[in-house]
């Protein structure tokens, strides 16, 4: 129980840190906090600025601002984007569905691909094909995701014309969505697979030297079934934790892929916000992404506890 309490405490601390960062950044950063809070390129007169300053309570003491901020958060009020003329929470809600769909599909696909190939490559690391796969996946993992996306876009959409090059759909039918999503999902899945592949490979190489693998052979299991019936479960336990940690990384990878493929998700939102200096949107996005990653980590810890009997031991 002690361990669980510690974990919970850490998650709470992470949550607080994220929220505090989000609160503190616009107030700490150089420049006028009002500008930092409403966005740079918005033109407003001095009088309006003053008005906003009092409205946002920027001349009140910090702790009052903080409690007000927390209160806003609890009401899902993430501020107002003066660029897009709409509340940030609303904009985010529209966008995040697509990004989550996109990231979710890619993470699962990537995990499945990477785990399977990685397990096989770790099982027989000496074969030519596996060595080649290892080189390939190392190269993939060293490529910035957006460059990979650019290459795919160039080759498959522009040169070969197999896939559309922008948007989520022409008409909102599953077929059209799948057609549009194929390339970006492939890119992200490959990217995520490359990481899982390397981890799984190392993990299997380590696990297959364990005695239980030898004992499985002694029981009469034949070669590859040792991998699938015994080694793979042990080796993929660390993957659960890593998948969660990776979730954040993949999330940001997804942002870049979205930009390249002009998908209207969080990525393009953030990109436009950077260009337009739309700070409220940026902050809101950061908060949402950070919370999503936090949630994923919590889920992974739970999943780990369920999957690994060593963690749950009867009293």
């Amino acid at each position, binding site marked *: 129980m002690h361990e669980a309490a510690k974990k919970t405490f*850490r*998650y709470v601390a*992470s949550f607080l*840190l*994220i929220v505090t960062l989000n609160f503190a*950044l616009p107030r700490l*950063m*150089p*420049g006028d906090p009002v500008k*930092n809070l409403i966005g740079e390129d918005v033109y407003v007169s001095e009088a309006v600025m003053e008005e906003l300053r009092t409205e946002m309570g920027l001349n009140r003491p910090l702790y009052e601002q903080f409690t007000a901020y927390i209160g806003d958060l609890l009401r899902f009020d993430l501020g107002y984007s003066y660029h897009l003329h709409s509340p940030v929470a609303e904009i985010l809600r529209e966008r995040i569905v697509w990004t989550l769909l996109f990231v979710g599909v890619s993470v699962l696909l990537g995990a499945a691909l990477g785990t399977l190939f990685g397990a096989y490559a770790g099982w027989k*690391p*000496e074969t030519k094909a596996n*060595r080649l796969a290892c080189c390939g996946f*190392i*190269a993939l*993992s*060293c*490529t*910035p*995701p*957006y460059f990979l996306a*650019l290459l795919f876009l*160039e080759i498959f959409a*522009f040169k070969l014309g197999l896939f559309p090059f922008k948007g989520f759909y022409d008409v909102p039918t599953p077929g059209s969505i799948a057609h549009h999503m194929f390339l970006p999902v492939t890119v992200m899945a490959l990217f995520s697979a*490359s*990481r899982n592949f*390397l*981890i799984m*490979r*190392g*993990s299997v*190489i*380590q696990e297959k*030297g364990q*005695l239980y693998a030898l004992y499985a052979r002694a029981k009469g299991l034949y070669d590859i079934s040792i991998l699938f019936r015994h080694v793979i479960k042990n080796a993929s336990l*660390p993957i659960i*934790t890593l998948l969660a*940690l990776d979730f*954040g*990384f993949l*999330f*940001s990878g997804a*942002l*870049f892929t979205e930009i*390249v493929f002009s998908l209207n998700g969080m990525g393009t939102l*953030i*990109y436009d916000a*950077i260009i337009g*200096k739309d*700070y409220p949107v*940026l*902050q809101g*996005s*950061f908060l949402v*992404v*950070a919370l999503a*990653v*936090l949630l994923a980590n919590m889920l992974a810890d739970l999943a780990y506890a369920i999957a690994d009997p*060593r*963690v749950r031991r009867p009293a």
Partner: protein
Amino acid sequence: MMQEEAYIGENTTQESKIRKSTIQESIIQESTIQENTRQWNDFRSLNLDLDIRKYGKNLKRFNRGGLFLFTFFLILALIPALFAPYSPTERFIPYEAPSTAHLLGTNDIGNDILSELVYGARISMMVGFASACISTLIGLMIGLLSGYFRGTLDELLMGFTDVVLIIPKIPLIIILGAFLRPSIWILILVLGLLSWESIARIVRSKTLQIREAGYVKSARCMGFSPFHIMVSDIFPNLVHVLLPKFMLATASAMISEASLSFLGLGDISMKSWGIMLSFAFSRGGFIREMWWWYLPPGVCITLCVMSIALIGFGFEGREKEKRGVDAE
């Protein structure tokens, strides 16, 4: 995010093994199991485990290729004038296709792309190495302190590390980059300050091992100050753990830099490969299908990152070999 080393497989495994093992530590109490493990490992190291060594050899081969590539990029970065036909700021006719005068053509404002590419090596690698230096230094200090003093300090520092580990790095860097004026030094600082967690963890676990070694104990008995022990007795034994971590941190910092530059958060006055790529995308190189503009910087990033990562792997593989497979 786990930008730091996560895209590099092996050590992440170790990382999570460490994570896993902290859970297990509290659970597996029977000393018999440890005893059995030891005996089995003795048996294994006597004769059964040849395959991991083979795997290590494999990595060494990678390492040689990596070393070669890395030297190449390093020379580019150190003496770009030798390879670049023009100054990167010199202007010619814009949007030219490759020719004998301009091997990789020219970009939107007429700069020679090959020259830009050569000069970009220095900036990309500098960002990578400088921020890796910062993160290694922070990680080393936190890991050493928490591993050496243990107790409450350890709990606090490691708790803090765990908390930081969860925060997604790239979005945070994006926000910071957006608020601050883009500058290469700020980029280095931010990247360095946000990627020390995994180094701290590994240094801590290593320090915990080393502090129980005989020579450290005797140094303590002789009354040397903790600082002296950490610097002269423990640190030298950490170098071989730090080196691969350092390389991998460099590799990931380079990728982060390229990604941030792509978002327009890089320093435009210092054209790294990432910024070249970003400009090629945003200023028409991609639409005009000028592959000689956007392909070379991308390939350079990939190759350079890969060479550094491979060297990191190589160090790690050799370490594993030297200490025997079971030392980890």
